[in-house]
């Protein structure tokens, strides 16, 4: 352990408003910590810049899932286990529940939160491509009030997001309008469990009479931020699925992604696999019976 606990302060107010007051008083000073599965790794390695932490673990206002007829609001403090065990998330937002089951092992799923995953903003995060294709909206809250932000514009650059220093994510809102879509996700990593994605795809599509009716493709680990493949979607939308389209999709995806070489994998591998995953999805889509 390469940090001295005496040099850190951590407080755990009992209410969300108390947390928000603290953040408002000293913006940028207090680092929110939920499940700690990212923050505590940095801390133990002696690499945590923040010296003051405010615990938002298990705050009831953040850890609930609310349903209305057309929307689900997932509290940012929900853990991956909360997501993977929720009936509606499993049924209507399967890409998210699947991603939740892929993140770390059981112990980390019991503590890691969806809000933490978003704010940590690693481009390799498992849940983020799902949020992109579901076109999530984030409810950001501060002492100043609440605002709704489309998730697609939330990530500005590598580990840089729109969140203000005095803000927290309160909830993730997903519209319940994907029952007709064929959903598919795949994570490519160094091993079958407990591994950071080298490439991951979340895909939603509708297919009828041989044609693509709608398609959403998002990929992780291929850019500084999780990436929606808008050019590939445009190239494929409304087209007939045949071998030429698969090839077009593959090459468009390959040109759209911009991965790097890093400790886990190579850029050229990621490009090729991203293309393969998209082609694989389209093949599955054309074979599907419009099942989610």
């Amino acid at each position, binding site marked *: *352990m*390469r940090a*001295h606990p005496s040099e850190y302060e951590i407080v755990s107010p009992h209410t969300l408003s108390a947390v928000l007051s603290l953040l408002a008083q000293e913006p940028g000073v207090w680092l929110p910590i939920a499940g700690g599965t990212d923050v505590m790794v940095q801390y133990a390695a*002696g690499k945590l810049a923040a010296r003051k932490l405010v615990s938002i673990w298990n705050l009831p206002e953040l850890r609930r899932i609310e349903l209305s007829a057309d929307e689900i609001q997932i509290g940012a403090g929900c853990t991956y286990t909360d997501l993977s065990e929720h009936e509606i998330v499993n049924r209507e937002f399967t890409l998210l529940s699947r991603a939740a089951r892929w993140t770390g092992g059981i112990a980390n799923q019991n503590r890691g939160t969806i809000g933490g995953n978003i704010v940590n903003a690693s481009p390799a995060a498992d849940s983020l491509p799902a949020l992109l294709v579901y076109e999530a909206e984030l409810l950001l809250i501060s002492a100043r009030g609440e605002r709704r932000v489309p998730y697609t514009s939330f990530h500005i650059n590598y580990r840089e997001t729109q969140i203000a220093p005095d803000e927290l994510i309160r909830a993730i809102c997903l519209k319940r309008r994907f029952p007709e879509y064929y959903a598919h996700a795949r994570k*490519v990593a160094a091993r079958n469990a407990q591994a950071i994605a080298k490439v991951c795809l979340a895909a939603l599509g509708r297919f009828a009479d041989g044609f693509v009716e709608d398609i959403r493709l998002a990929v992780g680990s291929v850019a500084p931020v999780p990436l929606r493949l808008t050019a590939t979607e445009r190239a494929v939308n409304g087209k007939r699925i045949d071998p030429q389209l698969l090839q077009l999709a593959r090459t468009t995806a390959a040109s759209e992604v911009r991965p790097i070489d890093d400790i886990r994998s190579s850029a050229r591998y990621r490009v090729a696999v991203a293309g393969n*995953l998209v082609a*694989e999805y389209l093949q599955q889509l054309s074979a599907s019976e419009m099942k989610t």
Partner: protein
Amino acid sequence: MTTARIVGTSVPRMEGRDKVTGRARYVDDMVLPGMLYGATVRSRVPRGKIKQITFGPGIDWTEFVIVSPRDIPGKNCIALIEDDQPCLADGVVNHSEEPLLLLAHPDRHLLAKAVEAVSVEYEPLPAIFSMQESEKLCQVIWGADNIFKSYLIEKGDVDAVWENADYIVEGEYTTGAQEQLYIENNGMIAAFDPLQGLTVWGSLQCPYYVHKALVKLCNLPENRVRVVQVETGGAFGGKEEYPSMIAGHAALLAMKSRKPVKIIYDRMEDMAATTKRHPSRTRHRTAVRKDGKILGGEIEFTIDGGAYETLSPVVLSRGAIHAGGPYYWPSVRIRAKAVATNTPPHGAFRGFGAPQSLFALERHMDRIAEAVGISPVEIRRRNFLRPGETTTTGQSVQEEIDLGRLLDRALEVSDYHEKKKKFATENPPGHSKKGIGIAAFLHGAGFTGSGERYLGSVVGLEGCADGSVRILVSSTEFGQGTNTVLCQIAAEALELRYEDVGIAQPDTQEVPNSGPTVASRTIMVVGKLLQSAALGIRQTLTASGKLGSSYSPEEFRDACRAHVAEHGTLRSLARYQQPKEIFWDEEKYRGSAYAAFAWAVYVAEVTVDLTTYSVSVDDFVAFQEVGKVLHPVLANGQIIGGIAQGIGFALYEKVIWQHGRMQNGQMTNYIMPTSADLPAIRVFFEELGNVHGAFGAKGIGELPMDGPAPAIINAIEDAVHVRFNSIPLLPEDIFDALAKPGVPEIASSSARGQI
């Protein structure tokens, strides 16, 4: 005599109860009064001269114990084969992470900060990081020519075989470094008292190695140094020689401070600074007859030893001797060398050179098969050693081993022929390809050649005052079952119950030197000595009239109690005597290299996913002849665990180097298999017995490490028809090979599918 058989049954693990209840005490679980914590300041450059060391601001250095080379009472070295490795670098560093200074403080959390606050100014020297650079003498960093050791093994007349060869097959094969990744990091506690002397407790395999090193480092008499092994959380060779270094560090701090000092590495430090498996490069050139029989060949085997010699000569030796595998070579020339690079010294890891040279050989056998147009099965069958034939070192195979039969059994159980045919016809274009591959190999148990004689292991057995019996050995338990099986052996030999036998904690003050716990020798060699020692106890008791020639465990207990009451002790020692038929010429490197070989055939079935280029091992069959299985559950556990490490060696475990320093020294980015990654591994034993081993046993600990990698890579070649000669083989490597034009593909036609 009504005792049921104990050897051959799966008795409860001796220390198992403590392990499943959390009561087992590992070194970091121990606290001594007044204990300080120690840490190591390490080099950040791979090679250079130390110009200045500055103790930076923000730390009250007066609170710290600081040890530098000047504080070393004896010789500044970690004594092993040579004395070239310093305990603390003095003036010059030869690898990243080389220890420079030691710090100790009562507050464990303060140490990391203090280590960061020490700044070292270097005058960098040009460093070399590869075997090639070392051979080319881009820099001379060790001795006159960077060569720690070389061996030449010759048999027959190699130069004459090329003329009559129908085929000459060449190949080059490489293996990377592999981290042992015991889940318990290295740790040691040392305490020094001017009267009692020095005591160290630690996670270690070889108490007497540590003892020898401390005597020299600390300039203390042998009877004033005491080394105690505590419960050890995995080792696999990674705690064979390295503990002498960390023990030396803890000892120096304890001697200077006169307080107990505990040093526990965290994972990042353990991975970056301690030993790994030697990277290797093997070049084969083989003369083959048209029926597939090997006429002869040249094998060049090179390993990267890192910056200091440590155990490289011995790793080299084993790798060189195993380079010919389980085959008959009428003539062969094996040139082996270990070279220096500016990386942390590489060291012992299960298999110890053999996984490296056997990977090359078993890949090469498939290449020979392809060149000659014979199947991988037949090429092996035709070349297998038969009883009476000689190995590459001229050792005659004395036992009735039938490798052809072992092969047939493995093929049958794995459904090899059916699957091979099925995969060849059914591998569809795109998506995924399946393949199946074989490896056949052997592993010599015990120390090489005259090694066991040189060790002169001594094993003790004592009768206790309460009538129980206690084993006295320096052989250590670290999961493989030493405690359990040795107690079984003693109980069986004395016709007692398993519960009547105990084993002393390995403590150099209490137990004789039964040799290091390495080289798959413990059950075979130490166990056999234990049988002799047991006989000695029995003879003493019968000679004194207290015990009849047959007796019950209760009668034994009474006799033992009475004897101890009367004489004070009841102790029997047995010392190793090399059997006369084991003759080894150390100069010519010829003769009987090992007292016994275990033999094996492994079959791996894989799927290569062409969307992601990843490989999954779907089925794994392991057939081995191991003498006698003394404990079925433990034996199975050894084989499965070794195969898991072998799968890691082949497909997952890559050390990423930059300027001679490991970059991926964390569990998140050094990848070992999880429970979700491994198939059911099917294990089968054949048992021929072994006259040299306890109750017929041979060594099995390292055997399973040798087969998985070549079997898997052979299977991958079967699946995608690309020749891979280097491990670890990652999906990125498979992608690169499939994507490039002019890839080294096989010329064979019928089996080639569409990629």
